[in-house]
Protein backbone atom coordinates (compact mmCIF):
# COMPACT_ATOMS: atom_id res chain seq x y z
CA UNK A 1 0.00 0.00 0.00
CA UNK A 2 1.19 3.50 -0.70
CA UNK A 3 1.48 5.97 2.17
CA UNK A 4 -1.58 7.66 0.81
CA UNK A 5 -3.70 4.54 0.83
CA UNK A 6 -2.52 3.82 4.35
CA UNK A 7 -3.49 7.18 5.76
CA UNK A 8 -6.92 7.16 4.30
CA UNK A 9 -7.39 3.40 4.56
CA UNK A 10 -10.88 2.07 4.43
CA UNK A 11 -11.53 1.79 8.13
CA UNK A 12 -10.52 5.43 8.67
CA UNK A 13 -12.78 6.57 5.86
CA UNK A 14 -15.60 4.45 7.23
CA UNK A 15 -15.36 6.03 10.69
CA UNK A 16 -15.00 9.47 9.11
CA UNK A 17 -18.03 9.12 6.91
CA UNK A 18 -20.15 7.20 9.44
CA UNK A 19 -18.91 8.36 12.83
CA UNK A 20 -19.98 6.24 15.81
CA UNK A 21 -21.28 8.02 18.87
CA UNK A 22 -21.61 11.30 17.03
CA UNK A 23 -23.96 13.81 18.58
CA UNK A 24 -24.67 15.83 21.67
CA UNK A 25 -25.63 13.96 24.83
CA UNK A 26 -28.17 15.70 27.01
CA UNK A 27 -27.60 15.41 30.78
CA UNK A 28 -24.17 13.84 30.44
CA UNK A 29 -22.48 12.78 33.68
CA UNK A 30 -19.23 14.31 32.52
CA UNK A 31 -18.16 16.43 29.57
CA UNK A 32 -15.25 18.46 28.29
CA UNK A 33 -14.20 20.44 25.23
CA UNK A 34 -10.88 20.32 23.43
CA UNK A 35 -9.53 22.51 20.66
CA UNK A 36 -6.52 22.39 18.46
CA UNK A 37 -5.96 26.07 17.61
CA UNK A 38 -3.42 25.11 14.94
CA UNK A 39 -6.13 23.77 12.68
CA UNK A 40 -9.33 24.94 14.34
CA UNK A 41 -10.41 21.42 15.28
CA UNK A 42 -12.95 21.34 18.10
CA UNK A 43 -14.36 18.36 19.92
CA UNK A 44 -16.80 18.02 22.80
CA UNK A 45 -16.97 14.70 24.62
CA UNK A 46 -19.91 13.51 26.69
CA UNK A 47 -19.84 10.54 29.06
CA UNK A 48 -22.63 8.64 30.79
CA UNK A 49 -21.67 6.26 33.57
CA UNK A 50 -23.41 2.99 34.45
CA UNK A 51 -25.15 2.20 37.71
CA UNK A 52 -21.87 1.51 39.48
CA UNK A 53 -20.95 5.11 38.73
CA UNK A 54 -17.62 4.09 37.23
CA UNK A 55 -18.22 2.01 34.12
CA UNK A 56 -18.52 4.06 30.97
CA UNK A 57 -21.98 3.30 29.71
CA UNK A 58 -21.98 5.61 26.74
CA UNK A 59 -19.67 8.14 25.08
CA UNK A 60 -20.63 10.66 22.44
CA UNK A 61 -18.79 13.43 20.67
CA UNK A 62 -19.58 16.50 18.64
CA UNK A 63 -17.49 19.15 16.92
CA UNK A 64 -15.60 19.57 13.72
CA UNK A 65 -12.27 18.45 12.49
CA UNK A 66 -10.23 16.66 9.88
CA UNK A 67 -10.79 13.05 8.84
CA UNK A 68 -8.07 11.82 11.20
CA UNK A 69 -9.45 13.56 14.30
CA UNK A 70 -13.04 12.61 13.51
CA UNK A 71 -12.23 8.99 12.71
CA UNK A 72 -9.94 8.62 15.73
CA UNK A 73 -12.58 10.00 18.08
CA UNK A 74 -15.21 7.75 16.53
CA UNK A 75 -12.98 4.71 17.05
CA UNK A 76 -12.31 5.86 20.58
CA UNK A 77 -15.98 5.80 21.49
CA UNK A 78 -16.15 2.14 20.48
CA UNK A 79 -12.98 1.33 22.38
CA UNK A 80 -13.94 2.76 25.76
CA UNK A 81 -17.58 1.76 26.14
CA UNK A 82 -18.00 -0.71 28.98
CA UNK A 83 -14.60 0.08 30.46
CA UNK A 84 -13.97 1.66 33.85
CA UNK A 85 -13.16 5.37 34.06
CA UNK A 86 -9.94 4.72 35.97
CA UNK A 87 -8.82 2.23 33.34
CA UNK A 88 -9.49 4.59 30.45
CA UNK A 89 -7.79 7.44 32.29
CA UNK A 90 -4.65 5.29 32.45
CA UNK A 91 -4.94 3.97 28.90
CA UNK A 92 -1.76 4.77 26.98
CA UNK A 93 -2.34 6.72 23.80
CA UNK A 94 -0.50 3.96 21.95
CA UNK A 95 -3.55 1.77 22.41
CA UNK A 96 -5.62 4.19 20.33
CA UNK A 97 -2.81 4.76 17.83
CA UNK A 98 -2.57 1.01 17.32
CA UNK A 99 -6.26 0.87 16.60
CA UNK A 100 -5.91 3.72 14.11
CA UNK A 101 -3.06 1.74 12.63
CA UNK A 102 -1.54 4.29 10.29
CA UNK A 103 1.71 6.25 10.38
CA UNK A 104 1.15 9.79 11.64
CA UNK A 105 3.37 12.85 11.38
CA UNK A 106 3.70 14.96 14.55
CA UNK A 107 1.09 17.43 13.25
CA UNK A 108 -1.43 14.69 12.50
CA UNK A 109 -0.69 12.96 15.82
CA UNK A 110 -2.26 15.93 17.58
CA UNK A 111 -5.37 15.48 15.43
CA UNK A 112 -5.49 11.80 16.30
CA UNK A 113 -5.33 12.16 20.07
CA UNK A 114 -7.47 15.27 20.51
CA UNK A 115 -10.51 13.11 21.30
CA UNK A 116 -8.65 10.90 23.77
CA UNK A 117 -7.16 13.85 25.60
CA UNK A 118 -10.53 15.53 25.81
CA UNK A 119 -12.15 12.32 27.07
CA UNK A 120 -9.56 12.05 29.82
CA UNK A 121 -10.23 15.62 30.77
CA UNK A 122 -13.94 14.83 31.00
CA UNK A 123 -13.15 11.85 33.24
CA UNK A 124 -10.90 14.04 35.34
CA UNK A 125 -13.69 16.58 35.75
CA UNK A 126 -16.34 13.94 36.41
CA UNK A 127 -14.44 11.35 38.42
CA UNK A 128 -11.25 13.05 39.55
CA UNK A 129 -9.06 10.62 37.63
CA UNK A 130 -5.55 11.91 36.99
CA UNK A 131 -5.04 14.13 33.96
CA UNK A 132 -3.34 12.37 31.07
CA UNK A 133 0.37 11.95 31.38
CA UNK A 134 2.22 14.12 28.94
CA UNK A 135 -0.48 16.77 28.90
CA UNK A 136 2.44 19.16 28.87
CA UNK A 137 3.51 17.85 25.49
CA UNK A 138 0.07 18.77 24.23
CA UNK A 139 0.57 22.42 24.94
CA UNK A 140 -0.97 23.31 21.60
CA UNK A 141 -4.28 21.87 22.65
CA UNK A 142 -6.67 24.13 24.49
CA UNK A 143 -8.75 22.25 26.97
CA UNK A 144 -11.70 23.66 28.84
Amino acid sequence: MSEFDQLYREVILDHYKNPRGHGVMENADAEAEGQNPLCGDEVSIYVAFGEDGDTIDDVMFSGRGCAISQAATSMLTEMVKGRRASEVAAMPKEELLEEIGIPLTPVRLKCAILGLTTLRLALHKGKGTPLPEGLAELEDLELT
Partner: protein
Amino acid sequence: MAVTTHPKLDAHRLRADFPVFEQPIHGKPLAFLDSAVTSQKPRQVLDAMREFYATSYSNVHRGVYTLSERATEGYEGAREKVRAFLNAASTREVIFVRQATEGLNLVAYAWGLDNLGPGDVAIVTELEHHSNFVPWQQIARRTGADFRMLPIDDRGELRMELLDDVAGDANVKVVAANLVSNSLGTINPIERLAAWAHERGAIMVVDAAQAAPHKRIDVQTLGADFVAFSSHKMCGPTGAGVLWGRRELLEEMSPFNYGGSMIRSVRVEDTQWNELPYKFEAGTPAIAEAYGLGIAIDYLEAVGLEAIEQHEHELAEYALERLAELPFVTVYGPPPERRVGLVSFNVDGVHPHDVAQVLDWEGVAIRAGHHCCQPLMTRLGVAATNRASFYLYTVPEEIDRLVEGLRKVKEVLG
Protein backbone atom coordinates in the same frame (compact mmCIF):
# COMPACT_ATOMS: atom_id res chain seq x y z
CA MET B 1 -0.79 58.93 -23.01
CA ALA B 2 2.52 57.19 -22.81
CA VAL B 3 2.17 53.51 -22.07
CA THR B 4 5.00 51.79 -20.28
CA THR B 5 5.24 48.12 -21.07
CA HIS B 6 7.29 45.68 -19.09
CA PRO B 7 8.86 42.58 -20.55
CA LYS B 8 6.83 39.52 -19.65
CA LEU B 9 8.21 37.27 -17.02
CA ASP B 10 9.27 33.76 -18.06
CA ALA B 11 8.42 31.63 -15.03
CA HIS B 12 9.65 28.41 -16.64
CA ARG B 13 13.07 29.97 -17.07
CA LEU B 14 13.12 31.54 -13.58
CA ARG B 15 12.36 28.17 -11.97
CA ALA B 16 15.85 27.02 -12.92
CA ASP B 17 17.18 29.56 -10.41
CA PHE B 18 15.46 27.73 -7.54
CA PRO B 19 17.24 24.52 -6.49
CA VAL B 20 14.27 23.34 -4.43
CA PHE B 21 12.46 22.38 -7.62
CA GLU B 22 15.15 19.86 -8.49
CA GLN B 23 13.84 17.27 -6.00
CA PRO B 24 10.71 15.16 -6.37
CA ILE B 25 8.12 15.10 -3.55
CA HIS B 26 6.42 11.71 -3.16
CA GLY B 27 7.90 10.87 -6.54
CA LYS B 28 6.35 13.86 -8.26
CA PRO B 29 7.68 17.25 -9.27
CA LEU B 30 7.12 19.88 -6.59
CA ALA B 31 4.29 22.33 -7.17
CA PHE B 32 4.99 24.86 -4.43
CA LEU B 33 1.75 26.80 -4.06
CA ASP B 34 2.47 28.23 -0.63
CA SER B 35 4.62 31.25 -1.37
CA ALA B 36 2.47 33.51 0.80
CA VAL B 37 3.73 31.67 3.85
CA THR B 38 7.32 31.98 2.68
CA SER B 39 9.03 32.01 -0.68
CA GLN B 40 11.65 29.67 -2.03
CA LYS B 41 15.20 31.01 -2.51
CA PRO B 42 17.07 31.49 -5.76
CA ARG B 43 20.62 30.27 -6.18
CA GLN B 44 21.74 33.91 -6.52
CA VAL B 45 20.76 34.62 -2.89
CA LEU B 46 22.06 31.32 -1.53
CA ASP B 47 25.41 31.69 -3.29
CA ALA B 48 25.85 35.33 -2.32
CA MET B 49 25.19 34.61 1.35
CA ARG B 50 27.63 31.73 1.36
CA GLU B 51 30.23 33.92 -0.29
CA PHE B 52 29.57 36.72 2.21
CA TYR B 53 30.05 34.40 5.19
CA ALA B 54 33.14 32.90 3.57
CA THR B 55 34.92 36.14 2.68
CA SER B 56 33.37 39.22 4.28
CA TYR B 57 31.88 38.29 7.60
CA SER B 58 32.44 39.96 10.95
CA ASN B 59 30.34 42.19 13.17
CA VAL B 60 29.22 45.53 11.79
CA HIS B 61 29.94 49.09 12.93
CA ARG B 62 32.66 47.81 15.27
CA GLY B 63 36.08 46.90 14.10
CA VAL B 64 38.53 49.02 12.14
CA TYR B 65 39.89 45.96 10.40
CA THR B 66 39.19 44.90 6.83
CA LEU B 67 36.63 42.16 7.49
CA SER B 68 34.51 44.37 9.71
CA GLU B 69 34.59 47.08 7.06
CA ARG B 70 33.47 44.61 4.41
CA ALA B 71 30.67 43.32 6.63
CA THR B 72 29.53 46.88 7.36
CA GLU B 73 29.64 47.69 3.68
CA GLY B 74 27.51 44.64 2.90
CA TYR B 75 25.00 45.43 5.64
CA GLU B 76 24.71 49.15 4.89
CA GLY B 77 24.71 48.42 1.16
CA ALA B 78 21.61 46.33 1.74
CA ARG B 79 20.01 49.24 3.58
CA GLU B 80 20.55 51.45 0.56
CA LYS B 81 19.01 48.77 -1.69
CA VAL B 82 15.95 48.69 0.57
CA ARG B 83 15.74 52.48 0.47
CA ALA B 84 15.75 52.47 -3.32
CA PHE B 85 13.29 49.53 -3.39
CA LEU B 86 10.80 51.58 -1.34
CA ASN B 87 11.75 54.94 -2.84
CA ALA B 88 12.32 56.16 0.72
CA ALA B 89 13.80 59.62 1.22
CA SER B 90 16.69 58.41 3.36
CA THR B 91 18.37 55.27 4.68
CA ARG B 92 17.78 56.73 8.14
CA GLU B 93 14.17 55.73 7.71
CA VAL B 94 15.07 52.09 7.00
CA ILE B 95 15.30 49.94 10.12
CA PHE B 96 16.34 46.31 9.95
CA VAL B 97 14.19 44.07 12.12
CA ARG B 98 13.69 40.31 12.25
CA GLN B 99 10.52 40.30 10.16
CA ALA B 100 7.30 42.28 9.60
CA THR B 101 5.96 41.02 12.92
CA GLU B 102 8.80 42.61 14.85
CA GLY B 103 8.49 45.83 12.86
CA LEU B 104 4.77 46.07 13.68
CA ASN B 105 5.40 45.31 17.34
CA LEU B 106 8.10 47.96 17.37
CA VAL B 107 5.59 50.59 16.29
CA ALA B 108 2.87 49.34 18.64
CA TYR B 109 5.20 49.41 21.64
CA ALA B 110 7.55 52.31 20.90
CA TRP B 111 4.91 54.61 19.42
CA GLY B 112 1.75 53.20 20.97
CA LEU B 113 2.80 53.15 24.63
CA ASP B 114 3.74 56.83 24.49
CA ASN B 115 0.90 58.09 22.28
CA LEU B 116 -2.22 56.12 23.20
CA GLY B 117 -4.38 56.69 26.23
CA PRO B 118 -7.96 56.78 27.48
CA GLY B 119 -10.29 58.38 24.93
CA ASP B 120 -8.03 57.38 22.01
CA VAL B 121 -8.85 54.76 19.43
CA ALA B 122 -6.78 52.28 17.45
CA ILE B 123 -8.53 50.92 14.35
CA VAL B 124 -7.50 47.73 12.58
CA THR B 125 -9.29 45.82 9.83
CA GLU B 126 -11.09 42.50 9.80
CA LEU B 127 -8.53 41.33 7.22
CA GLU B 128 -5.52 41.73 9.49
CA HIS B 129 -3.00 39.04 10.20
CA HIS B 130 -2.68 38.54 13.96
CA SER B 131 0.65 40.38 13.82
CA ASN B 132 -1.04 43.69 12.96
CA PHE B 133 -4.13 43.00 15.07
CA VAL B 134 -3.00 41.66 18.42
CA PRO B 135 -0.21 44.23 19.09
CA TRP B 136 -2.76 47.07 18.81
CA GLN B 137 -5.39 45.19 20.77
CA GLN B 138 -2.92 44.60 23.59
CA ILE B 139 -1.27 48.03 23.60
CA ALA B 140 -4.72 49.63 23.54
CA ARG B 141 -5.64 47.54 26.57
CA ARG B 142 -2.47 48.56 28.42
CA THR B 143 -2.93 52.24 27.68
CA GLY B 144 -6.69 52.40 28.23
CA ALA B 145 -7.32 53.23 24.57
CA ASP B 146 -10.23 51.79 22.61
CA PHE B 147 -9.64 49.08 19.99
CA ARG B 148 -11.97 48.84 17.00
CA MET B 149 -12.21 46.89 13.75
CA LEU B 150 -13.23 48.01 10.28
CA PRO B 151 -15.38 45.23 8.79
CA ILE B 152 -15.19 43.70 5.32
CA ASP B 153 -17.95 42.90 2.86
CA ASP B 154 -18.83 39.46 1.53
CA ARG B 155 -16.14 39.65 -1.13
CA GLY B 156 -13.46 40.28 1.47
CA GLU B 157 -13.02 43.97 0.72
CA LEU B 158 -12.85 46.73 3.32
CA ARG B 159 -16.09 48.58 3.93
CA MET B 160 -14.52 52.00 3.58
CA GLU B 161 -17.93 53.67 3.82
CA LEU B 162 -18.12 52.55 7.46
CA LEU B 163 -14.91 54.29 8.58
CA ASP B 164 -16.71 57.30 10.02
CA ASP B 165 -19.22 55.07 11.82
CA VAL B 166 -16.49 52.91 13.31
CA ALA B 167 -14.60 55.97 14.50
CA GLY B 168 -17.58 57.95 15.74
CA ASP B 169 -16.41 61.14 17.38
CA ALA B 170 -13.55 59.40 19.17
CA ASN B 171 -9.97 60.54 18.94
CA VAL B 172 -8.54 58.19 16.33
CA LYS B 173 -4.78 57.89 16.85
CA VAL B 174 -3.77 54.98 14.68
CA VAL B 175 -5.13 53.04 11.72
CA ALA B 176 -3.42 49.72 11.01
CA ALA B 177 -4.05 47.70 7.85
CA ASN B 178 -2.32 45.35 5.49
CA LEU B 179 -1.63 46.44 1.95
CA VAL B 180 -2.44 42.92 0.77
CA SER B 181 -4.43 40.38 2.78
CA ASN B 182 -2.54 37.15 3.45
CA SER B 183 -5.78 35.18 3.65
CA LEU B 184 -7.78 36.44 0.69
CA GLY B 185 -5.20 38.28 -1.40
CA THR B 186 -7.28 41.47 -1.33
CA ILE B 187 -5.33 44.58 -2.32
CA ASN B 188 -6.47 47.24 0.12
CA PRO B 189 -6.91 50.93 -0.77
CA ILE B 190 -4.17 52.14 1.58
CA GLU B 191 -3.93 55.59 -0.06
CA ARG B 192 -7.57 56.25 0.79
CA LEU B 193 -7.27 54.76 4.27
CA ALA B 194 -4.17 56.86 4.93
CA ALA B 195 -5.86 60.03 3.69
CA TRP B 196 -8.77 59.36 6.04
CA ALA B 197 -6.42 58.58 8.95
CA HIS B 198 -4.44 61.77 8.41
CA GLU B 199 -7.60 63.83 8.19
CA ARG B 200 -8.49 62.51 11.65
CA GLY B 201 -4.98 63.22 12.92
CA ALA B 202 -4.07 59.53 13.12
CA ILE B 203 -1.00 57.70 11.88
CA MET B 204 -1.24 54.95 9.25
CA VAL B 205 0.61 51.70 9.92
CA VAL B 206 0.90 49.30 6.99
CA ASP B 207 1.71 45.61 7.09
CA ALA B 208 3.27 45.09 3.66
CA ALA B 209 4.46 41.51 4.24
CA GLN B 210 2.21 40.18 1.46
CA ALA B 211 2.67 43.20 -0.79
CA ALA B 212 6.41 43.85 -0.93
CA PRO B 213 7.20 40.54 -2.71
CA HIS B 214 4.52 41.06 -5.35
CA LYS B 215 4.08 44.70 -6.24
CA ARG B 216 5.95 47.97 -6.34
CA ILE B 217 5.71 50.04 -3.16
CA ASP B 218 6.55 53.73 -3.16
CA VAL B 219 6.47 55.01 0.42
CA GLN B 220 6.46 58.59 -0.80
CA THR B 221 3.10 58.16 -2.55
CA LEU B 222 1.51 55.41 -0.44
CA GLY B 223 0.63 57.83 2.34
CA ALA B 224 1.62 55.49 5.16
CA ASP B 225 3.65 56.52 8.19
CA PHE B 226 5.07 53.06 8.85
CA VAL B 227 5.53 50.12 6.50
CA ALA B 228 6.79 46.69 7.59
CA PHE B 229 7.76 43.64 5.55
CA SER B 230 9.76 40.42 5.72
CA SER B 231 12.71 39.26 3.66
CA HIS B 232 11.72 35.59 3.69
CA LYS B 233 8.58 36.11 1.63
CA MET B 234 10.50 37.84 -1.18
CA CYS B 235 13.26 35.39 -2.07
CA GLY B 236 15.46 36.51 0.83
CA PRO B 237 16.50 34.62 3.96
CA THR B 238 14.54 34.31 7.20
CA GLY B 239 15.59 36.47 10.15
CA ALA B 240 15.60 39.79 8.31
CA GLY B 241 12.84 42.29 7.79
CA VAL B 242 12.33 45.99 7.38
CA LEU B 243 10.44 48.70 9.16
CA TRP B 244 10.26 51.92 7.21
CA GLY B 245 9.01 54.94 9.16
CA ARG B 246 8.65 58.65 8.65
CA ARG B 247 11.73 60.27 9.99
CA GLU B 248 9.99 62.85 12.16
CA LEU B 249 7.99 60.11 13.90
CA LEU B 250 11.01 57.86 14.36
CA GLU B 251 13.00 60.77 15.80
CA GLU B 252 10.36 61.40 18.46
CA MET B 253 9.91 57.76 19.44
CA SER B 254 11.57 55.97 22.32
CA PRO B 255 13.66 52.93 21.49
CA PHE B 256 12.01 49.50 21.42
CA ASN B 257 15.01 47.42 22.53
CA TYR B 258 17.96 48.58 24.62
CA GLY B 259 21.48 47.29 24.15
CA GLY B 260 24.57 47.67 22.06
CA SER B 261 24.69 49.78 18.88
CA MET B 262 21.65 51.89 19.79
CA ILE B 263 23.60 53.97 22.31
CA ARG B 264 25.49 57.23 21.98
CA SER B 265 26.65 57.49 25.57
CA VAL B 266 25.82 55.74 28.80
CA ARG B 267 26.24 57.16 32.26
CA VAL B 268 24.77 56.01 35.53
CA GLU B 269 22.41 58.99 35.47
CA ASP B 270 21.20 58.64 31.91
CA THR B 271 21.74 57.27 28.42
CA GLN B 272 21.74 59.06 25.08
CA TRP B 273 20.40 57.21 22.06
CA ASN B 274 22.26 56.74 18.82
CA GLU B 275 20.98 58.45 15.68
CA LEU B 276 18.54 56.85 13.25
CA PRO B 277 18.29 54.10 12.19
CA TYR B 278 20.62 52.64 14.82
CA LYS B 279 18.45 53.83 17.70
CA PHE B 280 16.14 50.95 16.79
CA GLU B 281 18.79 48.31 16.06
CA ALA B 282 19.98 47.11 19.46
CA GLY B 283 22.43 44.22 19.50
CA THR B 284 24.18 42.40 16.70
CA PRO B 285 21.73 42.40 13.79
CA ALA B 286 21.07 39.65 11.25
CA ILE B 287 24.01 40.79 9.14
CA ALA B 288 24.26 38.15 6.46
CA GLU B 289 20.47 37.95 6.31
CA ALA B 290 20.13 41.69 5.70
CA TYR B 291 22.82 41.31 3.05
CA GLY B 292 20.86 38.41 1.55
CA LEU B 293 17.73 40.56 1.48
CA GLY B 294 19.70 43.09 -0.56
CA ILE B 295 20.62 40.36 -3.06
CA ALA B 296 16.99 39.25 -3.18
CA ILE B 297 15.98 42.83 -4.00
CA ASP B 298 18.54 42.84 -6.83
CA TYR B 299 16.96 39.63 -8.08
CA LEU B 300 13.40 40.97 -7.92
CA GLU B 301 14.41 44.24 -9.59
CA ALA B 302 16.12 42.34 -12.39
CA VAL B 303 12.92 40.37 -13.00
CA GLY B 304 10.85 43.53 -12.50
CA LEU B 305 8.21 44.10 -9.82
CA GLU B 306 5.73 45.16 -12.49
CA ALA B 307 6.32 41.94 -14.42
CA ILE B 308 5.88 39.91 -11.21
CA GLU B 309 2.61 41.65 -10.42
CA GLN B 310 1.32 41.06 -13.95
CA HIS B 311 2.38 37.40 -13.91
CA GLU B 312 0.62 36.76 -10.60
CA HIS B 313 -2.45 38.58 -11.75
CA GLU B 314 -2.67 36.26 -14.76
CA LEU B 315 -2.17 33.22 -12.52
CA ALA B 316 -4.92 34.40 -10.13
CA GLU B 317 -7.26 34.86 -13.05
CA TYR B 318 -6.41 31.40 -14.39
CA ALA B 319 -6.76 29.75 -10.98
CA LEU B 320 -10.16 31.34 -10.36
CA GLU B 321 -11.28 30.24 -13.80
CA ARG B 322 -10.11 26.66 -13.27
CA LEU B 323 -11.49 26.38 -9.73
CA ALA B 324 -14.86 27.56 -11.03
CA GLU B 325 -14.98 24.26 -12.96
CA LEU B 326 -15.24 22.41 -9.65
CA PRO B 327 -18.78 22.69 -8.26
CA PHE B 328 -17.64 21.29 -4.88
CA VAL B 329 -15.15 24.13 -4.31
CA THR B 330 -16.05 27.43 -2.63
CA VAL B 331 -13.68 30.31 -3.37
CA TYR B 332 -13.31 33.33 -1.08
CA GLY B 333 -12.13 36.85 -1.81
CA PRO B 334 -12.39 39.63 -4.37
CA PRO B 335 -12.34 39.52 -8.19
CA PRO B 336 -8.93 38.94 -9.80
CA GLU B 337 -8.28 42.58 -10.64
CA ARG B 338 -8.23 43.46 -6.94
CA ARG B 339 -6.17 40.57 -5.64
CA VAL B 340 -2.61 39.27 -5.86
CA GLY B 341 -1.71 35.71 -6.83
CA LEU B 342 -3.48 34.05 -3.94
CA VAL B 343 -6.67 32.03 -3.75
CA SER B 344 -8.42 30.84 -0.58
CA PHE B 345 -11.01 28.10 -0.93
CA ASN B 346 -12.72 25.17 0.71
CA VAL B 347 -13.79 21.79 -0.59
CA ASP B 348 -17.37 21.08 0.48
CA GLY B 349 -17.44 18.79 3.46
CA VAL B 350 -13.70 18.17 3.55
CA HIS B 351 -11.48 19.60 6.26
CA PRO B 352 -8.61 21.74 4.87
CA HIS B 353 -6.03 19.51 6.56
CA ASP B 354 -7.26 16.54 4.62
CA VAL B 355 -7.28 18.53 1.40
CA ALA B 356 -3.67 19.62 1.97
CA GLN B 357 -2.63 16.11 2.92
CA VAL B 358 -4.08 14.51 -0.20
CA LEU B 359 -2.53 17.23 -2.37
CA ASP B 360 0.86 16.68 -0.71
CA TRP B 361 0.90 13.17 -2.11
CA GLU B 362 0.39 14.68 -5.51
CA GLY B 363 3.45 16.86 -4.89
CA VAL B 364 1.28 19.95 -4.51
CA ALA B 365 2.05 22.08 -1.44
CA ILE B 366 -0.70 24.38 -0.21
CA ARG B 367 -1.50 25.91 3.16
CA ALA B 368 -4.41 24.75 5.30
CA GLY B 369 -5.42 26.59 8.43
CA HIS B 370 -6.64 29.89 9.76
CA HIS B 371 -3.67 31.79 8.32
CA CYS B 372 -3.24 33.67 11.62
CA CYS B 373 -6.51 35.46 10.81
CA GLN B 374 -9.02 34.09 13.29
CA PRO B 375 -11.29 37.18 13.22
CA LEU B 376 -11.51 36.81 9.43
CA MET B 377 -12.23 33.07 9.66
CA THR B 378 -15.07 33.89 12.07
CA ARG B 379 -16.40 36.40 9.53
CA LEU B 380 -16.28 33.78 6.76
CA GLY B 381 -17.96 31.30 9.08
CA VAL B 382 -15.24 28.69 8.71
CA ALA B 383 -12.61 27.22 11.04
CA ALA B 384 -9.99 27.22 8.33
CA THR B 385 -9.46 27.48 4.59
CA ASN B 386 -7.10 26.12 2.00
CA ARG B 387 -4.87 28.67 0.36
CA ALA B 388 -2.91 28.38 -2.86
CA SER B 389 -0.47 31.23 -3.40
CA PHE B 390 1.77 31.98 -6.33
CA TYR B 391 5.04 33.71 -7.07
CA LEU B 392 7.35 34.52 -9.92
CA TYR B 393 8.34 30.84 -10.29
CA THR B 394 4.75 29.56 -10.43
CA VAL B 395 3.60 28.14 -13.77
CA PRO B 396 0.00 27.49 -14.93
CA GLU B 397 0.69 23.74 -15.10
CA GLU B 398 0.94 23.76 -11.30
CA ILE B 399 -2.55 25.20 -11.08
CA ASP B 400 -3.72 22.39 -13.37
CA ARG B 401 -2.20 19.89 -10.97
CA LEU B 402 -3.96 21.62 -8.07
CA VAL B 403 -7.28 21.23 -9.86
CA GLU B 404 -6.63 17.56 -10.65
CA GLY B 405 -5.58 17.01 -7.04
CA LEU B 406 -8.82 18.55 -5.82
CA ARG B 407 -10.79 16.12 -7.97
CA LYS B 408 -8.94 13.32 -6.20
CA VAL B 409 -9.72 14.88 -2.81
CA LYS B 410 -13.40 14.86 -3.68
CA GLU B 411 -13.21 11.29 -4.90
CA VAL B 412 -11.52 9.98 -1.73
CA LEU B 413 -13.07 12.09 1.00
CA GLY B 414 -16.12 13.80 -0.44
